């Protein structure tokens, strides 16, 4: 520390107690360094390879130089305070941000080594591969059957009525809804309970055999029982799909995900095994957030 001291006093003359650091250093972990994520943001078996991603809303930079791999068949949870950019980042993965005029996405985003933002890319095909479930259940004002059959029909996945029936049944079974609705497939979907509607939306998303399911706070409008059913479903789906879930419930992230990513003011601060994040996170900000020290 003496070498840092700029006063002319020589070391020999200086009383012991005066030998203090020139400036108090902050612990390194409390500082966010742009583009630097602590923990394990990368994977050897990446489904998504995302590098130096930046998202602008007009002049505002909502996502600041984020690099992340999302592994095949993993459940990764995005957590962070409101406005931290987790939903914005999620929506980059199937180009849902395209619908917002002032939104620009920079950086390299690849799904299975194919550029997601290639101008020649068919966005409809991309969204069939990367399905999405939203915060509020949003079934079409149609019958339960037609809600699930909608995607397979427009994508031409079934040639015969019996094929379509199979897809509808399988999707509803995977979504854990079949037993509850098999006798009333013609009933209107909007008459179902909130939890059932959300599981119907999941069934609709998986009916087109996506590879990835994005979930933007899928349980925030559901009661604990319906939430438990959706979480159970996530665990089952993770055997065959890659799942990215944005959640405000830390306990939910802890329960369902393999890895957890903590976002803060547009930065990706930490990505680690979920077990590690909730028992001994590496970054002070992650710790502060998950232990309820700031909101």
């Amino acid at each position: 520390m003496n070498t840092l001291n700029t006063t002319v006093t020589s070391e020999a003359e200086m009383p012991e107690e005066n030998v203090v650091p020139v400036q108090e250093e902050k612990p390194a972990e409390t500082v966010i360094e742009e583009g630097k994520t602590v923990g394990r943001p990368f994977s050897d078996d990446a489904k998504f390879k995302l590098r130096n991603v930046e998202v602008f809303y007009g002049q505002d930079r909502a996502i600041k130089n984020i690099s992340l791999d999302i592994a095949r068949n993993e459940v990764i949870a995005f957590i962070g305070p409101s406005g931290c950019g987790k939903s914005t980042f999620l929506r980059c993965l199937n180009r849902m941000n395209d619908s917002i005029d002032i939104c620009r996405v920079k950086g390299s985003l690849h799904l299975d080594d194919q550029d997601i933002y290639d101008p020649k890319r068919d966005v409809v095909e991309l969204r069939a591969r990367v399905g999405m479930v939203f915060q509020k259940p949003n079934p079409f004002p149609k019958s339960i059957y037609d809600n699930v059959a909608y995607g397979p029909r427009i994508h031409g996945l079934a040639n015969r009525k019996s094929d379509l029936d199979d897809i509808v049944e399988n999707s509803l079974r995977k979504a854990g809804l079949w037993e509850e609705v098999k006798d009333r497939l013609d009933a209107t979907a909007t008459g179902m309970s909130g939890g059932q509607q959300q599981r119907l939306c999941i069934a609709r998303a998986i009916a087109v055999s996506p590879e990835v399911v994005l979930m933007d706070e899928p349980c925030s409008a559901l009661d604990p029982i319906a939430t438990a059913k959706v979480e159970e479903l996530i665990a089952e789906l993770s055997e065959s799909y890659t799942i990215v879930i944005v959640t405000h419930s830390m306990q939910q992230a802890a329960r369902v995900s393999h890895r957890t990513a903590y976002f803060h003011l547009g930065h990706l601060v930490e990505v680690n095994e979920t077990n590690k994040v909730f028992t001994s996170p590496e970054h002070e900000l992650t710790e502060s957030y998950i232990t309820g020290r700031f909101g």
Partner: protein
Amino acid sequence: MPTQKDDVYGDHISHKFNDELMELKTEFLKMGGMVEAQVENAIQALVDGDGHLAEQIRAKDKQVDKMEMDLDEEATLIIARRQPTARDLRLVISVIKMVADLERVGDEAKKIAKLAIKLSEEGQAPRGYVEVRHIGTHVLGMLHDSLDAFARLDSEQALRIMKEDKRVDEEYQAAARTLLTFMMEDTRNISRCMSVMWVLRALERVGDHACNIAENVIFMVKGEDVRHTPVEEAERVVGR
């Protein structure tokens, strides 16, 4: 690893949560202080042949048991109400484990008190009391330091306690050999020396419990479990 500060459990958005964690910490230290006094008094009762003090220790052990149950309940309620994570979770889990250690230390003190009564009733010249005093002072220091390390979240001090434990084991072995010599000298010493041996054994266990507490402190601060690992590994964890 995030840094640890003194007010590390006192800066949640929920003040009630702060209070609950602080209360848990304070009550644990209170129990620690009580148990420490029990061991100290037990040694005193033994070397002074003070049967009255020994009786007091046996009576007070019920209070220690009660504190164990109260702290366990408090920790359980925090988990149920708050679902603590990270350092808060590590505090609650560690307290649950360390409370069991403290209760066992209390039991060892009670055991020593019981032997103190027996020995004072037999009323012969003391044998092996030098060793009792020596090891007693050593393990009491360890217990005190482990509670201090907990209060200050000082993982380096905790590491020092882990290293001390090996020395206590050596001292115990040496003391046992000395007592064996007394027994071989005169067989009439055997019963008495065996009682003192039990006292030494109890003190050695107190050292083990202090060491367990120290290991938990390292877990609380560093987030890594250093139980059943070589001291070198604990050194690496603490040095990070």
